[in-house]
C-alpha cells in the first residue's frame, strides 16, 4: 500500500471532478462563438465561474481563470506593479512561494522594482510593525504588497486582513497568495476586500480539481496590466480561448470546498484533518523528541505538519519513508531535482543545518487514520537509520 502524505504538493482529483472533466471535453464549442454551440460552452463556463466564485465568496466577474496558481500570482503581482507605475517599491515577506519570490526578483532585475523583504518571526509570522514601518517610510512609492495567506511549507496562517488594513490606510493594493490556504481554511474575498485586498490567487489541483487551471480573484475596482494579449477574453485581463472543461472540473472541486467550509464550526473536514495532523505531531514527538515542529503551533493549516529533525537529512528521511511506501516531502527542490535548504526556514531565522533536516507531512481529503498509522509505524526505523547516515554528504563543520 502506498500512503500519500504530500497533499500540499497536489491532492488526488475528486472522482466527480474527473468524470465532469471527461464529459465536458466531449462538448464542442468556443465560448466566444455566437452560435448555439458557442452559447452552450459559454453557459458551462459561466456556471463554473459562479460555483468557483461561491467557494471564494466573491462575485463571478471577479474570477479570472488562468493556467495555474503560478500564472495567477504573476498576473496579480506584475499586473499591479505595471498598473501602478511609476511606483517602484514592492513589500513582500521573505518566506513566500517561489511563484512570488521569482516574480518580484524578475521585476527588480528587469523593470526597476525595489524589493523590501519584511521579516518573519521564528514561527513564520510576518512582522506587522516592520511592515507598517516600511510602508510609512515612503507610502507614495509603494506599488503593492504581496503576502501569502498560509505558508505552503510550514503551514503558518498570516493575519491577511490586518496586513491589508495597514496597506489600505495608504491606498496601497495588496495581492494575496491563497494557493495553499484554499480548501483548508475559509478564503472570504468579500471580507478581505473590505479590509483592503485587491487580488487573490488560487489553484484548482490543490482542492481536488485538475492541474492546468487556477484563478486570480480580481476586485471589480482593481486594474492590472495583462501578461497575455490577444482576443480580449476575461475583462481583457487574460486573453486566450477559455478552457471550459477544466473550469467545469474546477467547479466540481470548488463546490466541495464550499460545502466543507460552511460545515458547523468545530466539525466537518477541517476538524477531521486537524485531528489526524495532531496524531502525526504527537507520534513524531514520541519517535524523535528532539524534532521541532516548524510554523505557528496554533495558527496553522489543519493538514500541515512540518518538522526539523536534528542530526539527519530530510533527504534521507524522505528516501527511507519512500522505500517503506510513505510519500512525504522535504519542501523545495530545484529543476534538476536537487534538494535545497528551505528558504522559508531560512527566512524564519533557522540555520542551514536545521533547514536541511526539514520534512513536510501534509494531509488531505483522502487521508485516513490508517495513513497516519502507516507513517508512525515506518518512522522509527527510518529515523534511526537517517540519524546513523547523519550528514554524510556534508562537509564537517559547515
Amino acid at each position: 500500500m502506498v500512503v500519500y502524505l504530500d497533499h500540499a504538493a497536489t491532492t488526488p482529483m475528486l472522482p466527480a471532478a474527473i468524470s465532469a472533466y471527461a464529459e465536458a471535453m466531449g462538448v464542442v464549442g468556443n465560448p466566444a462563438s455566437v452560435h448555439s454551440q458557442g452559447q452552450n460552452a459559454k453557459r458551462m463556463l459561466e456556471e463554473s465561474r459562479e460555483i468557483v466564485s461561491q467557494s471564494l465568496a466573491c462575485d463571478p466577474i471577479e474570477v479570472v481563470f488562468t493556467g495555474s496558481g503560478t500564472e495567477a500570482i504573476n498576473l496579480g503581482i506584475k499586473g499591479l506593479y505595471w498598473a501602478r507605475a511609476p511606483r517602484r517599491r514592492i513589500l513582500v515577506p521573505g518566506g513566500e512561494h517561489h511563484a512570488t519570490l521569482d516574480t518580484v526578483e524578475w521585476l527588480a532585475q528587469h523593470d526597476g522594482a525595489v524589493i523590501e523583504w519584511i521579516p518573519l518571526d521564528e514561527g513564520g509570522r510576518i512582522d506587522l510593525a516592520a511592515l507598517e514601518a516600511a510602508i510609512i517610510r515612503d507610502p507614495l512609492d509603494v506599488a503593492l504588497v504581496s503576502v501569502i495567506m498560509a505558508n505552503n511549507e510550514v503551514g503558518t496562517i498570516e493575519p491577511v486582513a490586518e496586513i491589508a488594513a495597514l496597506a489600505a490606510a495608504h491606498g496601497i493594493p495588496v495581492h494575496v497568495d491563497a494557493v495553499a490556504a484554499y480548501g483548508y481554511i475559509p478564503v472570504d474575498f468579500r471580507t478581505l476586500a473590505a479590509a483592503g485586498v485587491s487580488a487573490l490567487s488560487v489553484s484548482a489541483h490543490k482542492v481536488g480539481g485538475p492541474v492546468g487551471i487556477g484563478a486570480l480573484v480580481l476586485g471589480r475596482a482593481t486594474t492590472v496590466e495583462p501578461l497575455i494579449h490577444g482576443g480580449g477574453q476575461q475583462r481583457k485581463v487574460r486573453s486566450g480561448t477559455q478552457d471550459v472543461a477544466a473550469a467545469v472540473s474546477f467547479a466540481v472541486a470548488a463546490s466541495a470546498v464550499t460545502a466543507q467550509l460552511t460545515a458547523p464550526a468545530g466539525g466537518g473536514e477541517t476538524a477531521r484533518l486537524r485531528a489526524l495532523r495532531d496524531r502525526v505531531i504527537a507520534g513524531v514527538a514520541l519517535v524523535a523528541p528532539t524534532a521541532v515542529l516548524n510554523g505557528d503551533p496554533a495558527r496553522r493549516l489543519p493538514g500541515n505538519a512540518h518538522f526539523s529533525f536534528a542530526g539527519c537529512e530530510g533527504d534521507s528521511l524522505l528516501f527511507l519513508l519512500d522505500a517503506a511506501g510513505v510519500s512525504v516531502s522535504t519542501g523545495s527542490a530545484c529543476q534538476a531535482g536537487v534538494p535545497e535548504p528551505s528558504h522559508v526556514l531560512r527566512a524564519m531565522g533557522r540555520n542551514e543545518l536545521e533547514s536541511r533536516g526539514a520534512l513536510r507531512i501534509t494531509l488531505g481529503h483522502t487521508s485516513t487514520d490508517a495513513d497516519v498509522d502507516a507513517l508512525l509505524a515506518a518512522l522509527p526505523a527510518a529515523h534511526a537509520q537517517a540519524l546513523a547516515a547523519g550528514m554524510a554528504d556534508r562537509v564537517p563543520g559547515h
Partner: protein
Amino acid sequence: MSGGVDSAVAAARAVEAGHEVVGVHLALSRMPGTLRTGSRGCCTVEDSMDAQRAANIMGIPYYVWDFSERFKLDVVDDFIAEYAAGRTPNPCMRCNEKIKFAALLEKAMALGFDAVCTGHYASILTDADGNKELHRAAAWAKDQSYVLGVLTADQINHSMFPLGATPTKAEVRAEAAERGFSVANKPDSYDICFIPDGDTKGWLGERVAPVTGDILDREGNTLGQHDGAVAFTVGQRKGLSIGTPAADGKPRFVLEVRPITNTVVVGPKEALALKEIAGNFFTWAGLAPEHPEVEFACHVQIRAHADPVPAVAQVVSTSETDDSIELRIIPNEPLVGVAPGQTAVIYVGTRVLGQCTIDRTVSAVPVTSTDAPSPVSSASASPATVNA
C-alpha cells in the same frame, strides 16, 4: 547515474542480476548549468532528466543526492590549490577517491545499501582466498582501472562494475538502444565536468591570480620572465618568452614549476625523462603486498591512457628522524611527460596493486654543471593568490 549511457546500462545489468537497485544522480554543483549539448556528467538539468528517464524504463526508484558542498571542497578547490602549488592534479581521480566511493558510499551504506554500482570499465575479481581484487576491463581501449586506482580494499568490497567484461562501447550502446534508453547515442563526456567550455587554462586564470616571476635554466641562470607560473605545465614547449636562444640551439621545455619561488625551470627535452618517481600519499587497491619494503616487479601507468611501463617499486623510509615513508617507482626505461600531482598507478598483470600521487621525481639526465638531481618541491604553499 550521470545521465550517460554507461551508468544506465550498468544499472540495468545490476537489476537483471537480481539486485535491488536504486538510481542515484549526484548533484555536484549548486548552480546546475543550463541545457548544454552532450553529456559532461556534471548535473545539468538535461543529464538529470536523462538519468531519471533511464531509471523509469528499468522500473527503479531514482533520487538526486546533493554532494555539491563536498565536491567543491574536495575536488574543485583541491584542483585549484594543486595547480596553485605547481602540480597537475587529476580531478576525476579525486572525485572517485573523495566523492563516488567515499561520501556517496558512506551515505549509501548508512541508508542500508550494500554497494555502489557505476558504469566504469573495470573488473572486480576474487582471489583463491576470497579477497576482492581490482583489475583492468576486458577491453583495453575502454579500460578505466587507472582512475579507480585510488580505491582501497574496503571500497572495492562495496563496489560493482557491471561493464568490466564488455568488449566494446558499441556493445554498450547497442544494449542501451535495445533497452529503449534515450541516451543510447548520447556523446561521451570528456574534459573536466566543472569546466564547461573545456578551457582549463582560462578557468584557472580566473581563479588564481598570476604573479610575474623568473624563468630559469637548470643551473639557476635567469633566462626571462613569465607572467604566472601556474599557467605552465611540465613538458610544455610553447609560450616560453625567452629572448636568448639556448647555447645548443635546441628548443627548451618546462621541466619544473616551483610555486614557492614563483619560478619556472626550463631545459632540453632529454631532461624531461625521469628515472625515478615517488609519492608519500599512496594506497593499496585490495590486499597490500606482504613485504612492500622489498623491491618488487610491476608496471607503472602515469595517465589514464598512457601505456604501462615495466618497473620495480618498493616502500622506503624517507627520514632518519621520523617514520615518513614513500612509494618509490623506478621504471625500466625513463618516463616522459610526468608532472608532480599526477597519479602513478602500479599494476601486476591486469591487477591494480595501488597508486601514489607523484610528489618527487628524478631526472634521467643530470644537470650539466652539477651532478645533483633536482627534486621537485612538494610544498603546498604558494605565492599565487587563490581567489576561489
